[in-house]
Every structure is written in C-alpha cells, then in structure tokens.
C-alpha cells in the first residue's frame, strides 16, 4: 500500500483506535480554529439585514462587497499596503541580518572575552523597557521622526528571536564546525557556508516572526509618523474600524444602496490586514520538513 511504503521503517503503524482518536482531536481543533475565521469572512460580505438580526453569521443571505469596495476605493489602503510590504521586507532583512550575525557571534561566550556581557545586555532588553516618551525623544534626536526608519529601527532586534537562533546554532554538531575551522575557514565563512544552510528551519521561523511583527505594528507608526500618507496598512485599517458607521452619508446616497454595518467593516479590515501573511506562510512551510540534518554528519 502506498501509505505503508512511505512510512519510515522506525515508526510502527498506530492502532485503529489511536488513529480514530487522533482524527477526532485534530478535526475538533481545526474546526474550532477555522470556523471563527469563516464567520468573519462571511460577516465581511454581509449586509445590514444579515447582521442586525444578531447571532452568529456563517453565510450571508444577502452578500455584498461594499465593505471591501469602500475600503479599497480611493487608493489609500492600496498605498498603505505597499508601504507595509516595503517596511516588512526591509525590516525583516535588516533584522535577520543583525540577529543572525549577533546570534552566531555569541555562541562561544567562553572563548570570546566580553561576549557573555553582550549576551546579558541583550537579554536585559527582555526584562526592562523604556516607555514611550524616552523612545520618542531618542527617535527625535536621531532626526528619524516622520521617516520610515522610525518604524523599522525600534524593533529591529528582538532578544527573544536572538536567543532562539543562538540556541539552534549551538545545537549544530561541533564536528562540522571544527573540521571547517581546521580547513582554515574563519567564523564568518563558517556562518555563511555551514551554519546558515543547516538552520533553514529556524531561520524561516524567525523570519516569519519578524515579518509578522513588522506587518502588525501600528503603534510605532502612530507615534512617529505624522504624515498620514506614510502610514502602514494596519494603522489605516484601524481608522476604518474606529469610524463606527464610516460612511455617514452612504445611507443617503441611493446609488450605493444599503450601507454596510460596522461589523462588516471590522471584519473586512481584519481579512485585508491578514491576507498577505496568509499568503506568505505556506511558502515558508516547506522549510519545516523532517530530516534536515540527516546525512550531514558522516563517519
């Protein structure tokens, strides 16, 4: 049977009751996680009649795309989406650059004088934070107010991500590194040629964490970006939600028909704000495959 052929030799076939139990549990979990999202998408396409009745909406009886139409109209949101993509891409690249180099540089704190202190300093950032006003004053004194750097730099290195990557790096078998060193490679070359290729899984994960962090941030933008045309998408979308009944006069304009209720705006906002990440995630999934290290160590 095809299934048995794919099963690795070291894993026995689970019994039928176990398989059944697993299936039920996983099915339950999937349903619990997914149905709210389905409901949200449904509400985002719902018209007033569907929502005002109350209760859970799973399928709109009178679907309308007006919430999306009014959000995407005028180009503000589209522009903000591009801004967000730019910030996320640049930010993630910068963050990964700084974090992976620093993580590797701190893998041998016993050998490198002063690096233990550096590690402790980095960890300290997880425990103490400065608050809004000092950060604002810093950004202002660096003349970064109202620039995109003000949104990228404050979050560029996360000590949590740093420590996780470092942990993974330290888990790479020493023999591989040592044999490269004996062949005359310096640490930078080791990082680039050996360590990074073997760390695809953790790098994918941490890139995802950084990317999501940048993508979801709105507070830094709110604080540092006065020019609204520079606003990223989460901040702009938030305004739609805050608006209550956003288009006070839509109900007056017979051309646009029934106005969408605030809930469908809220849900459309969430769907739009989440969609790009949902598209990116499956691309990264393939890095979470088994056996990355198999065959790396021979003899």
């Amino acid at each position, binding site marked *: 049977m095809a*299934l048995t052929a*794919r099963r690795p030799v*070291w894993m*026995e076939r*689970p019994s039928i009751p176990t398989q059944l139990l*697993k299936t039920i549990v*996983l099915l339950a979990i*999937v349903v*619990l*996680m997914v149905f*709210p*999202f389905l409901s949200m998408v449904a509400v985002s396409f719902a018209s007033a009649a569907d929502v005002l009745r*109350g209760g*859970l909406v799973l399928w709109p009886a009178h679907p309308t795309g007006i919430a999306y139409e009014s959000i995407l109209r005028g180009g503000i949101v589209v522009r903000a989406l591009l801004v967000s993509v730019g910030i996320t891409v640049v930010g993630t690249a910068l963050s990964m650059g*700084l974090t992976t*180099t*620093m993580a*590797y540089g701190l893998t041998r704190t016993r*050998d*490198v*004088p002063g690096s*233990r202190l550096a590690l*402790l300093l*980095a*960890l*300290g*950032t*997880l*425990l*103490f*934070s*400065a*608050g809004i006003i*000092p*950060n604002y004053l*810093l950004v202002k004194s660096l003349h970064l107010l109202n620039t995109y750097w003000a949104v990228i730099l404050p979050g560029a*290195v996360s000590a949590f991500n*740093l420590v996780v990557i470092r*942990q*993974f790096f330290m*888990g790479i078998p*020493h*023999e591989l590194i*040592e*044999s490269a060193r*004996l062949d005359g490679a310096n*640490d*930078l070359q080791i*990082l680039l040629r050996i360590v990074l290729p073997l760390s695809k*899984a953790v790098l994918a*994960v941490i890139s995802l964490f950084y990317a999501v962090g940048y993508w979801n941030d709105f507070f830094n933008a709110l604080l540092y970006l006065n020019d609204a045309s520079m606003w990223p998408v989460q901040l702009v979308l938030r305004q739609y939600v805050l608006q209550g009944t956003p288009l006070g006069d839509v109900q007056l304009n017979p051309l646009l028909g029934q106005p969408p209720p605030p809930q469908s705006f809220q849900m459309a906002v*969430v769907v739009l704000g*989440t969609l790009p*990440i949902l598209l990116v*995630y499956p691309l990264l*999934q393939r890095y*979470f495959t088994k*056996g990355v290290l*198999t065959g790396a160590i021979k*003899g």
Partner: protein
Amino acid sequence: MAVGRAATAGRVERARRAGTLRARMWRERWMYLLFLPGLAYVVLFRYAPLIGNVIAFQDYSPYLGFTDSAWVGLRNFADLLTDADVGAALVNTLVISGLQLVLFFPAPIALALLLNSLMTDAVRRAIQSVIYLPHFIGWVIVVSIWQQVLGGDGFVNQLLRSQGMHTVNVMANPDLFKPLMVAQDIWKEVGWGTIIFLAALTAIDVSLYEAAAIDGATWWRRLRHVTLPGISGVVVLLLILRLGGILTVGFEQILLQQPNVGARAGQVLDTFVYFRGVVGGDWGLGAAVGLLKGALGTLLVVGANWAVKRLGQEGVF
C-alpha cells in the same frame, strides 16, 4: 575515528582559550565583527532610552520634562506598595501566570508532537496552515466571537434555552474569569506556538529514531528518549524566558473583559498601570512598576538559569 577527531577538537578548544587577552581577542576578531553591530543597536536603541526610567523617582510631567520635574525619591514605590488595589492586581496576575505555565505552556508542545506523528505530509501541512489563523485575529474580535458563542445570548445559551435548560453565562462569572482568560489564550495562540516546536522537531537527527527502532522501542519510549530530549533545549529556553515575564499576562484581552467581572477578579498589574499610569497620567508610577517587574523577572531568570545548569542542561546564558 570519531574518537580521534573528537580528541583533536578538544585539543583545539583548549588551545583556543590560551594566551593573553589581546591575543585571544585578535584570534576571535571575526566573532566581534559579527556581534558588535547588533550590540551597538541594542545599546543605542534599548539602553539609551532606559535612562528615561529615572521618572520612577520623579513626579514626572511631560511638559516640564526630566530636568524640571520634581524629585520624589522612593515615593512612587511607597505609593505602589501601600495601594489597596495593587495587592489584588498582583495576586490575579500571579494566578493567571501560574495557570498559563501549567496549561498554556505545554499546549503547543503537545499539539506539535501530535502533528509530528502524522504520516501524511499533505494532511499535516493542511492542518498546519489553518491552526495559526486565530493568532491574527485581534483581541477585540476574539472577545466578540467568544461572546457570540458563550455569552448570555450566545449560541450555546440559545441552544440551552430552546431545550428548556438553565443558561450559563461563562463570560460574566468572576470565578471563571482566570481559567477563561487562559482558555482564550490557548485557543488563540496554540497554533502559532507550534511553529517553533515543529522547527525544533525537524532538527532532531532521524538516525536517532532509526537506532531506537533497532533497539525495539515503542512510540512512548521514542518520545521519552529521542523526541523530548531533542526539543528540550527549546522548551527550557522558552520556559526560562517566560519566567522572566511572569508578571506580564496579556493586556488588551484582560482590559476588554475586566468590566464583566469587576476589578477584584479581573484586575492585573498591567491594567492597574494602565488606569493609574497611562490614562491617569501618573508616569512615575508606571515606570516604578516597570522597574519592579524587571527586577523580579531578572531574579527569576537568573535563578532558573542556574537551576537548569545544575541539572546538566544548557541555560540561556
């Protein structure tokens, strides 16, 4: 042959640590090149602003600034410790944190292991690509969804009512508040939390499984002797880091639902600081709480790290 290489490696390591300070620093110059940029960033963007925590010792006013605001020494701390509400907030925070450690922390690990044991790649990938969805839903909507299902007029209660049974309002019950917070947290974050463990699981050498199978190990023994040790590094790391943040239990989630159950059951340290420190403009108090949280967190992290090393594992530092 493996032994021979290991011996060589050992000699090389010991040789590396010999020599004067300057010699050692020069030898490791690449490492400095690698971590100094990140360190510079940390110092500039994280430590420089930390000076702002001086307002914990001031009666700070943004208009007057650091230089002109009055110094009050430890008065903010004294106010904090003698405040009638802070006790309840602290207790609630610790209880929720404890529940999170016991219930929320293991959940993604368990789910990751469950997923890992799936045979069909396609099924596993499909499940993986949906269970993280709730992570992206903001708390405002999460609460509203839970209300729609579990609220007084929610789906569950409408069902109960139509069957003539007594309704239950889970969301307005002060005694259920803390478990409810943790349950919501698990629902929202368990899928996202599996990501890091799945990545860790991929790093386990498959040949170890093969060896275990040759020794006739059952799935339970494989779990105990190969899988769990394989991810123990990540687990311990995350556990220690979580201990550092033990007084931080989620803010927006609790702020939104605290009015449902009252402050005695629902106030946590961060919402306490929110009302007094942010909306009330008592910046010094907010900073004081931040310093105390940091101090406690440091204590816990250092202690946990030491304990972990005593047990033979690698600590965080």
